[in-house]
């Protein structure tokens, strides 16, 4: 108890995750999906977690929400403190308190994450009844207000409809309405716009931004789209093979990339700067198999700058700027090549 009280005083972070590791038992063996991840989220700020499919970004947030099926899943180490209160692990989780009330979550595929047999209004009203003890009538009225807030036209009529009567964009709005119904302090958005068209994506991102400004909630945005990151994020964590390889402010990540993987991602995308026309440089190969987690840096097999040491041991996190850190041996004082050199070599 006293520990938690101290944590509240000393840590300004709303959520602090340290050394999180998650494994899954499968027929093929143990998959080490998340291998020691740590980050902080501050009030009113947006943290983007970026990475390829299979890098562990969804598992990271699902473990905080208690959404990992155990078994086969297993949280092998780590802490996640929300306002100083531990939320990880079976014994400490009071699922109902965290899910919905303190943390709201929206999922990638709105078509399959809503209950097809309940009306939209009832689904949004449910968390209000559970967490706030509202009567059904009052919760349903609040649901209509939330739908209006999410800019769904004819909210009153829409609240009585079922998910199949909604389009993808509208369902995602309904899901946002549900996620913020109990005024959570954090909204976790797991690829919220991946299934949507760009015009609808822009609408949903604007909506999330407006909601954040009004309620002051923090957002953890999981995505693989660097364009979405550029638009939304304050801070960015780049994940690869179950670890965060680079962490920094959005301008650190985009303009002073310090990790070869982040650089590689940017080189692999077309830019829309008419003055620059660069060849797409793909990252050759594919991510490592997490059945047998690599001993060294997970990226070294694909890294054009890999050195001998990269295969042998995983690099520590090196501080490269005020709020900017990168896990790469190139930052070690004995390295002959500095990451700044890489950056300027690639960008003239």
């Amino acid at each position, binding site marked *: 108890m006293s520990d938690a009280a101290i944590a509240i005083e000393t840590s300004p972070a709303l959520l602090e995750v340290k050394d999180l590791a998650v494994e899954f038992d499968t027929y093929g063996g143990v998959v080490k999906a998340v291998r020691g991840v740590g980050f902080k989220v501050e009030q009113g700020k947006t943290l983007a977690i970026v990475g390829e499919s299979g890098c562990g970004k969804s598992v990271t947030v699902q473990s905080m929400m208690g959404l990992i099926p155990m078994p086969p899943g297993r949280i092998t180490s780590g802490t996640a403190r929300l306002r100083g209160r531990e939320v990880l692990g079976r014994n400490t989780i009071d699922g109902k308190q965290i899910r919905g009330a303190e943390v709201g979550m929206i999922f990638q595929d709105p078509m399959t994450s809503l209950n097809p047999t309940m009306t939209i209004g009832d689904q949004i009203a449910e968390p209000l009844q559970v967490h706030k003890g509202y009567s059904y009538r009052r919760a349903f009225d609040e649901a209509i207000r939330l739908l209006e807030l999410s800019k769904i036209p004819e909210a009153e009529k829409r609240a009585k409809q079922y998910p199949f009567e909604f389009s993808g964009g509208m369902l995602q709005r309904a899901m946002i309405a549900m996620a913020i119904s109990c005024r959570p302090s954090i909204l976790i958005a797991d690829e919220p716009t991946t299934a949507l068209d760009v015009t609808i994506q822009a609408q949903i*991102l604007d909506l999330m931004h407006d909601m954040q400004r009004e309620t002051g909630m923090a957002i953890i945005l999981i995505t693989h789209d660097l364009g979405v990151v550029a638009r939304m994020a304050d801070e960015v964590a780049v994940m690869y093979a179950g670890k965060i390889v680079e962490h920094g402010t959005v301008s650190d990540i985009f303009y002073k990339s310090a990790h070869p993987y982040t650089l590689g991602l940017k080189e*692999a995308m077309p830019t829309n700067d008419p003055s620059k026309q660069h060849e797409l440089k793909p990252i050759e190969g594919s991510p490592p198999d997490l059945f047998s987690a690599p001993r060294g840096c997970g990226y070294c097999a694909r890294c054009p700058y890999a050195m001998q040491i990269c295969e042998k041991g995983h690099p520590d996190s090196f501080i490269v700027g005020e709020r900017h850190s990168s896990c790469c041996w190139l930052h070690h004082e004995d390295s002959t090549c500095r990451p700044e050199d890489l950056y300027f070599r690639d960008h003239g």
Partner: protein
Amino acid sequence: MTELVEAVDLTRYFDLGRNQRVHAVENVSLSVGEREIVGLVGESGSGKTTFGKTLVGLHAKSSGVVTFRGEILPQKYHPADFQRLATKMQMIFQDPYSSLNPRMTIGEIISEGLKLHTNLSAGSLKEKVAEWLEQVGLKADHMSRYPHEFSGGQRQRIGIARALILEPEFVVCDEPISALDVSVQAQVINLLGELKERMGLTLLFIAHDLSMVRYVSDRMAVMYLGSLMEVGKADEVYFSPKHPYTEVLIGSNPEADPKLERNRPSTTIQGEIPSPVNVSPGCRFSSRCPKAMDHCHKVTPELIVLKDVDRQVACHLYT
């Protein structure tokens, strides 16, 4: 440049019964020159895939014609037409997970076309498949494996090998990269680019990633609700769109550059693409268009050629 494939007023309806008709593609005229890459963009439900499939004969045409090197192709393909034309036109499909038969080995999948169209012996078939597996960056001994043993990027390469082994002249690539991760997208794009150079391919590149389409294509065509809105040189369309819909589409495409992205004017529009069932007259985009006039709701604009720039636009602002 001579035209290789040309669609004139191509239309494809799907009848749902009870007087309901999906106007999937309506009066689309688009030509693809020899060795050209034309990018086709638009929201989901705009008819891009239906257009591509109709072009290669996987859907019968409701009306309109498609010509290939000046020859008018049949309205509905019969097996003999496929037999004849499959060596000239091919398609790479969007979803690398559902477009490969899970019960066939990679060797069988890739060689099936060759078996049907050539009289190669089993030995030389195998050689050819091995050669193509290497060409698309896989290994020859992958031949005996099944699709589930491959990742998305690898499956897409298998799809590419299957389409290109017959050495077609024209290939419709239907969202070949949208199911793939960023780092793998570039691999597939560069592979397509190399093969295009080497084989002299002509491509219709269907995608919704505007930055990628601009990067890949010579010309860009924008579709909305079954109709063409704008056609022009890819760079010019991207940087100076004329049609209000193109403006919105490009304005909504997030740029991977925080300064650029946060400083540009917002072009978000409300609403969603309407249902293509029983479309009312008037411009297709008029219900969401920020610049719509009374006229737009009544009269369908024709695709016209703008005078001073090399551009076709279907919008009443320019008539």
